[in-house]
């Protein structure tokens, strides 16, 4: 019988994602819908299985119901295994104390026993809020080759945006000499992608040290990585070139959806050799009668209206005379006849009444002062009444 896995992945999926506002009112960020038929967590999970990693712990905390239901036994990602597979790891009660996950490092610390069940050589730490395709196996090979204790995936970002990220300052050979979490004056534009491979024994050691430190915030970026660096452990950067997007804000989520459009999109989902798996719904193919231009339409749709530059999720009904322009519609949405939707993100199970108007055309909406850059956001399950009007940039979490 197998008793060992070379590499175990730990996926941090407990965050609230407060900058997605209404979209994460009652679901965890990794469970937010993306790209018509996916949820954000499909990307790291698919990357795992496509990279040959078949043991994944998913750490949940904030509003885990839909996430747990979605992951189920892991079958959609071929992660239903007799040894390994996907496991939901929620905070638990112990004899000594009961505690919620108090930070990324603490969350992993509390699941050291889970990892040790598989006696891994390496542990891959992932987060559940990025859209990208990456072969973790290549990164693991680089980690082994460099004999690093920790390898951090990174990519170049515009220097002007560098202060939003954890920044790696590296030597020419790629080793890291300094790690700065969201620096005011960044010295480089190499941003950490929040993807780490640790040699397991080192990870366990530094997690235990960090846990014992009362001053620590129990965070990888702020505490564990700097502590390892200070102790002289070998930390190496791993450069990733390709599409990677943090979809932690309304505008970045909208942009990432738009990146899927076009004959040659910024981010290509149609790739037979690198399939993004998801819990595909049981619905017939989309019925299309109206005008659909430069858009994605998922299965189960009944499209009789006009759709332009939009991403339409599963089982959406767009009635005759309705217009959906520059929008992201997540799933099970009904847009009644004559309704006009512009520059908006509409969460699942929303109904838009007849002739209602949601948002403003993108050019006008961008001028609207709002925390979403003019994107109108409708939260899960709400209804907009007949002839209702929702101004550009509003975030609506209740029936209107």
């Amino acid at each position, binding site marked *: 019988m197998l008793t060992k896995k070379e590499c175990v992945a730990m996926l941090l999926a407990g965050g609230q994602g407060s900058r997605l506002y209404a979209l994460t009112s009652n679901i965890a960020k990794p469970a937010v819908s993306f790209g018509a038929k996916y949820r954000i967590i499909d990307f790291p999970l698919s990357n795992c299985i496509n990279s040959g990693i078949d043991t994944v712990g998913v750490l949940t905390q904030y509003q885990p119901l839909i996430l747990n239901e979605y992951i189920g036994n892991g079958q959609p990602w071929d992660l239903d295994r007799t040894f390994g597979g996907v496991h939901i790891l929620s905070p638990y009660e112990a004899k000594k104390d009961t505690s919620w996950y108090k930070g990324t490092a603490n969350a992993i610390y509390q699941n050291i026993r889970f990892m040790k069940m598989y006696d891994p050589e390496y542990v891959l730490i992932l987060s559940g809020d990025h859209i990208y395709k990456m072969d973790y196996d290549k990164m693991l090979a680089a980690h082994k080759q460099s004999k690093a204790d920790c390898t951090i995936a990174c990519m170049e970002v515009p220097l002007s945006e560098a202060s939003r990220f954890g920044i790696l300052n590296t030597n020419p050979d790629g080793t890291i000499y300094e790690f700065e979490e969201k620096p005011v004056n960044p010295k480089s534009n190499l941003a950490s992608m929040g993807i780490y491979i640790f040699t397991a024994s080192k990870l366990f050691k530094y997690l235990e040290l960090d846990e014992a430190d009362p001053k620590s915030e129990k965070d990888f970026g702020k505490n564990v990585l700097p502590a390892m660096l200070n102790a002289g452990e070998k930390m190496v950067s791993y450069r990733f070139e390709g599409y990677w997007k943090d979809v932690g804000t309304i505008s970045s989520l909208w942009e990432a959806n738009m990146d899927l459009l076009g004959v040659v999109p910024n981010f290509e989902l149609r790739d037979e050799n690198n399939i993004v798996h998801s819990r595909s719904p049981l619905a017939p193919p989309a019925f299309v*009668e109206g005008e659909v231009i430069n858009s994605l339409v998922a299965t189960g749709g009944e499209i009789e209206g006009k759709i332009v530059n939009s991403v339409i999720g599963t089982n959406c009904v767009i009635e005759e005379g309705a217009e959906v322009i520059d929008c992201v519609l997540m799933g099970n949405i009904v847009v009644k006849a004559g309704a006009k939707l512009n520059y908006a993100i509409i969460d699942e199970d929303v109904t838009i009444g007849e002739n209602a108007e949601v948002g403003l055309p993108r050019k006008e909406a961008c001028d609207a002062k709002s925390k979403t850059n003019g994107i109108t956001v409708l939260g899960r399950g709400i209804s907009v009444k007949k002839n209702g009007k929702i101004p550009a940039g509003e975030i609506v979490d209740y029936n209107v």
Partner: protein
Amino acid sequence: MASTVGVIFSSLNEQNVPELTKLRSIGSVPFGGRYRLVDFALSSMVNSGITTVGMLAKNNYQSLMDHLGSGKYWDLARKEGGLILLPPYNGETETLYKNRLEALKSATGFLKKAKEDFVVIADSDSVYKLDYSKVIDFHIKKNADITMVYHEHVTKKSHYYITFETNKTGRITELEINPVTDGVRKNYINVMVARRSFILGLVQNAIQYGYTSFGRDILSPSVKSLKLYGYKLDGYYQNIDSLVSYFAANMDLLNKNIRNEIFGGRDIYTKVNDSAPAKFTETAKVKNSLIADGCLIEGTVENSILFRGVKVGKGSVVKNCIIMSDDIIGENCNLAYIISDKDSVIRDNRVLAGCEIQPFFINKGTLI
């Protein structure tokens, strides 16, 4: 529901649509953009609460097995029962079964092992939804020996067909095989319900007397001696007994009412492929069509069914067509009344047309 086991014939009546069944069982003929014909009978069984289904296969059942897998998409991957493939079993004879009765003989092992009281036996060449549990309730209430499900329509002159008459109580009073008729009749849809022990007895008897035809040797002579009852299937029913009816049944799905009737409940199960959502480009023009996941539409598509992963190039016009999975249609093509089987490639500038009563069929994997 009374405990019931299902038996599905996945490869009877294949001779009716030789084009589509050259390389596959009738049950695995692609249908409706993402389904296979067997999905309808199988999903109906699952939705009726049946958890053990024997799937009789004959030849060329590779694509059927690929489709069904462990049965997990029908929730039939189980420790107890579940989906059980019954490959050809020729026992003491040297040949594969040639008809329904011989096929049923090869399922006796499965039926003997089953513990359920009742059995539903269905073909897989038709599109319909039926709650078999209601048929069983009817069967019990009537204390019938065999309940035969029928649909009322103008009889189509297929290769082999059975019609019957019933009295007020539903008992079959007259049963005809291949009658010459033009009107609306009660057409047997090859779905029957009986006690498992009764079917086993019939088969044993048939072996003893050397019967070869279920209809001619068993049903027809027994109208008086056996309690045969007819159960009416209300609602949509289409038997795929020719390329024309295959075409028509697919096109029926463009009718909103029929689409809702069959798929509205989202309970026709099928194998899931993780294709990306369908993509429509700046030049796409689509009207009255079903577009499955994975399609890339750059041209014009009207009154058509596009299966998963179909590409329609710029400037191409596809009208009244059924285009199966992963077909590639180049640029500036003009297609009308085409049924194109999987994995075919139609090169730029091709003009191909059939007509409604004679759709033009393109074999799997053809390059035109």
